[in-house]
């Protein structure tokens, strides 16, 4: 399984759990699920994109 797919599954699971736990109405649950899911996946992608500017590359030579 790819890392991205696992991240999406993880985000969906967490979002569903908290939506069911903390909201009683279906509409509110869907709203919270969407907010959490988009935040988690979007945040992960944003972090990955920022990391693009900091490639690991070869280790720096020891002076």
């Amino acid at each position, binding site marked *: 399984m790819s890392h991205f797919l696992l991240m999406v599954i*993880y985000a969906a699971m967490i979002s569903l*759990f908290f939506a069911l*736990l903390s909201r009683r109405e279906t509409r509110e649950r869907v709203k919270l699920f969407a907010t959490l899911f988009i935040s988690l996946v979007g945040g992960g992608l944003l972090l990955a994109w920022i990391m693009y500017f900091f490639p690991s590359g070869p280790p720096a030579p020891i002076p």
Partner: protein
Amino acid sequence: MTKRAAASPPSLPLANPWLAAFLAWLLPGLGHVYLGRRARGFAFTVIVLGSLALGASLDGRLPWHFSGSPLLILATFGGLGSGLPYLILHLGMGYAGDVQAAGYEYGSAFILTAGLMNFLLVLDAWDITWGKEIDPPPSDPEDDPDADPAKSDGKAKSDGKAKSDGKAKSGGKGKGRSKKA
């Protein structure tokens, strides 16, 4: 004692909070089923056990340390939140995870998350028995039983139909709720 009795919902006068919390820990969702929240209970069972099973299928770590590094002890405590399935995985099936597996890190996250989610379910089951279910933020005047009725009416009118309809649907359950601590 009087305060607790007043906070208990009338529909669950005999629910034992300790039993509810224990059942919730023993098998994810069982505490909610015991308290009459069957649909939610089954949904929680699927989510938490699914997370644990997926973590195990990815060969994630199943922490089992009671001495040594404090972080490992903390991880063990977190993982043990999954209850009986966690014990079965470790003691019954001898599962421990494989540090060389490709999915080790992700699997460990899934396993630990399952335990932590179930701890929240234990707390939720405990709260339900005392009539303190988690609900929308208490800042909403409609949700606060002690709020000024005049203000609540004004809010309901200005918020539109959808919100007041939703509250009307959940009004039956809310009667037994106490004010948020």
